[in-house]
């Protein structure tokens, strides 16, 4: 397997960034990791994951869709789309990598979302295998192997070297582009590291969480469950879970009046919010119970119903750490589950 010594990471990043924009997880001043545009000297974070998910690259929190310019009775419709530049996202974890597959099912299905597709087409996703998963991790529940992430190309660390593996043409092209820095390396230590990681994954507290009793055919029994009241009781109705979630994909489209015309934009929406899907007649979900139920039904029942059984969660654990009242999909699954 091709490898580079970890102490030459700077050279690797310089080489990638010389030909296209590179984003890597880097530490903020407060210690949290976030994706940042690579600049010379920037260090790769050793945190397990970024605070915000990687979905922002393809589905940003806000984006302009179209402008309308008004002059007298004339309205000009201005297409604001621009061809995205090529970019590399480096160090994506297995959970976030799978989230792209899930988002693809939403945004690349007919009618294709050209804004999303534009960025997706111009990206190369280079993933990084996990070696120190956290107690909040449960990607295995959704069939994800944290020690073997998807993505266009993947890399694996054995503590001294970083090994590369291409998964498709794009990934191969990426590896070719840095091949002058790589050399053939022995993977025996890496094999040990991966074995160890798999052992740890089995020991995690959520290792046995299963989706067996969820899916598209469970609509009525879960929708009408009497557990929702208790589960949603202390929900604050904030959007934290939805905004840190790598798979939450709901958005709102709004018009901003510039005084000379309209900027039509879309922004992330949250089913937890009181005006979510509000229509002329009002809001179909009147209380927090219904809004709360929507989020989990979407991930555990509606999404698999419409996507050949694929669940709308990747077990990244961000909502488990970030919910202000520590209510989350794991607690919901455990409380709801009808065997």
């Amino acid at each position, binding site marked *: 397997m091709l490898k580079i010594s970890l102490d030459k990471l700077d050279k690797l990043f310089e080489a990638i960034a010389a030909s296209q924009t590179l984003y890597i997880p880097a530490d903020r001043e407060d210690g949290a990791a976030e994706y940042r545009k690579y600049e010379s000297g920037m260090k790769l974070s050793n945190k397990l994951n970024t605070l915000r998910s990687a979905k922002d690259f393809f589905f940003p929190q806000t984006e302009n869709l179209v402008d309308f310019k008004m002059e007298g009775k004339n309205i000009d419709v201005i297409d604001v789309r621009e061809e995205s530049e090529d970019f590399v996202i480096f160090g994506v974890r297995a959970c976030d990598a799978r989230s792209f597959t899930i988002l693809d099912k939403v945004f690349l299905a007919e009618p294709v979302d050209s804004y999303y597709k534009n960025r997706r087409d111009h990206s190369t996703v280079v993933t990084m295998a996990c070696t120190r998963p956290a107690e909040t991790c449960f990607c295995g529940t959704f069939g994800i192997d944290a020690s073997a992430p998807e993505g266009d190309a993947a890399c694996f660390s054995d503590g001294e070297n970083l090994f590369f593996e291409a998964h498709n043409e794009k990934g191969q092209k990426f590896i070719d582009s840095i091949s002058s820095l790589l050399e053939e390396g022995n993977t025996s230590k890496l094999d040990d590291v991966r074995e160890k990681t798999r052992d740890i994954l089995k020991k*995690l507290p959520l290792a046995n969480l299963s989706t067996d009793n969820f899916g598209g055919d469970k609509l009525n029994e879960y929708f009408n469950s009497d557990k929702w009241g208790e589960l949603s009781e*202390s929900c604050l109705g*904030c959007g934290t879970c939805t905004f840190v979630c790598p798979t939450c994909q709901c958005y709102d489209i709004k018009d*901003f009046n510039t005084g000379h015309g309209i900027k039509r934009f879309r922004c992330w929406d949250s089913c937890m919010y009181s005006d979510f899907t509000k229509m002329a007649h009002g809001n179909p979900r009147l209380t927090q119970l219904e809004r709360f139920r929507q989020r989990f039904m979407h991930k555990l029942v509606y999404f698999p119903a419409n996507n050949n059984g694929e669940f709308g969660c990747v077990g990244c654990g961000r909502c488990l*750490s970030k919910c*202000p009242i520590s209510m989350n999909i794991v*607690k919901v699954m455990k409380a709801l589950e009808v065997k």
Partner: protein
Amino acid sequence: MQEAMINKAKQLLADGTVNRVIGWKRGEFAYDITPAVFESAEELDSEFVYDDFTSANVSKYLVKECKKEGRILAFLKPCDTYSFNQLIKEHRVVRENVYIVGIPGGPKLDAEKIKAKGITGILGVKNENYTLKIDTVYGEETMPFYEAILDKCASCKSKKHVVYDELIGEDGDVLDSNRFDMVEKLENMSAQERYDFWREQLSKCIRCNACRNVCPACTCEKCVFDNPNSGVENKAPADSFEENMFHIIRAFHVAGRCTDCGECSRVCPQNIPLHLLNRKFIKDINSLYGEYQAGEDTTSRAPLNDYNKDDCEASIVHERGVE
């Protein structure tokens, strides 16, 4: 303490003083505690928890709970009693419908601070003589208790319960806290440095509204920022400056009513020190109108709701703004 609380709750349920209990429920891990309402002795026995991680302030839930049938037992920590008292003052809660048992407060732990030390795979956390013994899938780790406490507890303002029906344990005193130290540091910065500080902090905001929704002073039935008809509703800001303004406007709205419970900063998923905005207002109110602690009582007139001839002139704001 937990056992004494469960026994007290069972007794009050059994003798009919209350029909529900609001407290905290155990989670999947050592630290993921959820506020919850309990209705029976069985529920209390199996799920009620009070430990180093039960930091959530349950006062705001009482706005809704006190409107339900019967009376609810609320276990309030000293800081939570200030929030509840302020809600009484603002006529947001029905005092008679809540039976308050004051309990000793923190310092409470912040799981994020443990994780920030690189400790992960956490299976259990034990406090042994103020050293945390943390059991993880990677082996046992230790860290000093006081390095893992919540910021809000590190600058605790009071161990005194300002409202209660009875207490478990002894009441404490108002403390001489260091809570304005960081505000002073910000005040001593140049305008540009301060501006840069806040721009950097507030630009992290993802507009999840957790700070607002957890805030016991934010109890409007419908927030203007959620109302599409208000003209200022902004699910997405027009620019990053507008985004920053949300927090400043919110801090103004709760000025003189914020008890400094610190929940805004505790829940912020982006670690923005929002409480510093509120503390700046508290400090200013103290210096301009005399010492005032929101939530300390239910009868006094709040400085910003009151007029005295010797109040400072509005121009002082203008003067102070010039450097």
